């Protein structure tokens, strides 16, 4: 498999990613997709949306939907109290907030570091993770923002 192409699932490829933690797990998105990182403010829930859409918040006058990565990826541990942050990311021509536990660091990614997601990982989440990065004994999943966008545009789950 061509790992380059897999990695391109993030639609942008600068060689640098921002990694973030959700529970015990680590994920990352390309640094060019990230507009800003801000603290969590209570969202206004939207009717008829899947559970992983936490609602909308006011980002300086923009109505910003917030996607709860914990629920989207079905990460089951306890929710940390008031330590959540929202990563504001570009997804296609839209802007969304990703609700995560904390932002960890910026990592230089060599395409050789990227591994395929084993085919045994299937189900709803399979498309959302487009690759795995092995680093210092950690595993960092590459979040495929385009796939998140597809999930948003699908009918409410």
């Amino acid at each position: 498999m061509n790992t380059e192409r897999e990695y391109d699932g993030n639609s942008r490829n600068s060689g640098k990613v921002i990694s973030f933690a959700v529970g015990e797990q680590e994920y990352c998105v390309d640094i060019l997709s990230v507009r800003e990182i801000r603290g969590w403010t209570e969202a206004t829930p939207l009717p008829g949306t899947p559970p992983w859409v936490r609602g909308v918040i006011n980002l300086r006058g923009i109505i910003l939907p917030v996607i709860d990565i914990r629920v989207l990826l079905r990460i089951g541990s306890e929710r940390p109290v008031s330590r959540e942050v929202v990563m504001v990311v570009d997804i296609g021509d839209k802007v969304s907030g990703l609700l995560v536990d904390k932002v960890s660091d910026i990592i230089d990614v060599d395409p050789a570091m990227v591994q395929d997601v084993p085919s045994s990982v299937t189900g709803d989440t399979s498309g959302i993770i487009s690759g795995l990065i092995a680093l210092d004994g950690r595993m960092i999943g590459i979040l495929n923002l385009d796939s998140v966008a597809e999930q948003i545009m699908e009918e409410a789950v």
Partner: protein
Amino acid sequence: MDDLDSIRPIFFEECAEQLTELERALARLENGEADHDTVNAAFRAVHSIKGGAGSFGMTELVRFAHIFETALDLLRSGKITPAPSVLQIFLHATDVLSDLTAAEQGGPAADPQRTEECGKMLEALSAMPEAEPAQKSEDPAEATPEADDGVPDGFMPVRFEFEEDLSDPQNIPELSEGFEIFSDSPASGNMPHAEAEPPAEMAKSVRSESPCETKTPVLSGPVSKAPVVPVTAPPASIRVDVARIDRVMDLVGELVIGQSALREAFDKNALSIPGESDSSTLSDAMNAIGQLTRDIQDAVMAVRAQPLRTVFQRMQRVVRETSLIAKKRVHLITEGEDTEVDRTLIERLTDPLTHMLRNAIDHGIEPEEKRIAAGKPAEGTITLSAAHRSGRIVITIKDDGGGINRERVRAIAEKKGIISPDANLSDADVDNLIFAPGFSTSETVTDLSGRGVGMDVVKQAIQDLGGRVSIQSEAGKGSDFILSLPLTLAVMDGMLVTAAGQVLILPVSCIVETMMIDRKNIFPVADDMPLMCVRGSFIPMIEIGSALGFSSVSKNWSDKVVLIVEDDDGRTTALVADSIDGQMQIVIKAIETNYRPIAGVSAATILGSGQVALILDVPAVIAGAGKPADISWVKQTGIPSEMAAAESMI
């Protein structure tokens, strides 16, 4: 070439304006207002388009505009009279010119055969027997802006005498080798100074022509004969990128939100401020800022406002072409075209109006024989009028046709299964059937109705703009279609309510009345659809919180409030909320900009607290609650709470 590319959009914008001017002038001529200013306006419009098109090397457009201009010049110089037959050709030529412009702009290519035919007709005008040289020479006021006295200030008109007629550059073959020439009207025989301008000057030149014109009587003739024309320079104007105005609009929206946040904080803390005088000074200042904020908002809205003229003028063509296809003679009268509305609205009104006019000609206006038999003038009249009425804009399309044939409408609705044969419908109900999806009174697919758009689409389009459509029809006399629209799509008056812990906003325009709930007036019906008795009539009750899925259906009605709302069809529903928190002007923000449309919610806004509040789509909430099959979204929990998260983990 980059410079030219950057002003191309300006050129097309100006073309649109000039075409509007042209239509307007021709319409005036048609109504017998054949003064020279009007003829000049038409001539100038075509001339400007030609000049601009030449700069961009749009040869097709230049060629046609030139023929058109030549023909208009005949009219200007009194060689032909503005007879109906001549005006028909001019109107036809306007359409062709408009098509050619659209084609240059990247639209569909204009029909070359039509262009050719129209060009021939225009050229044939010059072969017509010369009319009496009209009063032209006696009236100095009609001297054209291109005439020698029409130069801008600071320029001295100098006339050169040439042996040959060099005013037509085509007579100078040497010139065409080195330069790109677009020709001026040979008949006008004056200095082609206007065309020599660099294209960047185009906007200026167009603007500067009018004041020149008003100066002509002073320079060129006996003042005694000329009517005293007050020098009315057109108001100075600049072109601004729409995005910049939208940005100002957004900022003003933020200002409104910030101001209401200040107000909220002040009201909360007012009591704790020591010293009464401080408090009242602060309060006065707050009120002043509040007033200013509102004034600024109005001023920005005024910047975005545009007269409806552009849309209305376009409708002349629609009527012209449709009546040709329908083989009916129809005259369109427009009224109130100076009525201003937000530009977003203008763009989205064209399609619904086009379709309603086609409908009026196709179905409203009767064939000529029938009209004569009914004692009506052979030519049908449609009046398109606009007016401001209590904070909304009302557009009326009135035809003097046969009115809605209610028996036929009913029969078709029954045949198509829209209503059951035994339905008991009032006249108004029957009239409204033409808006029902899948209804089309045209039994044979004609050129007009074969376009695959029904009146239901028109209604939907108007509703999407926050508007309503109603019909008044009288058999044998005609029908009125009345559109009522909000002035803007950017702000609205909203009623703040709390339901299931969420602040929600209802458009004030749909609220009929509000009241406290009274248990005695609630009558449950079998399937959990309680009815409420309001002054003797039973209306359905919908709990806002549960309809949106924010809470489960509660049977506890105590301490709740009721908002009686009316949907576009005039049906009333009682919406139940926990409390009403006041009324405020809100700035509408689309949710689909960054997410996707949500059933039951039309948009969102930002409250003074910075919190996002959802604006309820009242008709959708009512429809959703009435049809259990359609409310899959209602059953879901909209709150991704810990519970929802826990469920999805399983």
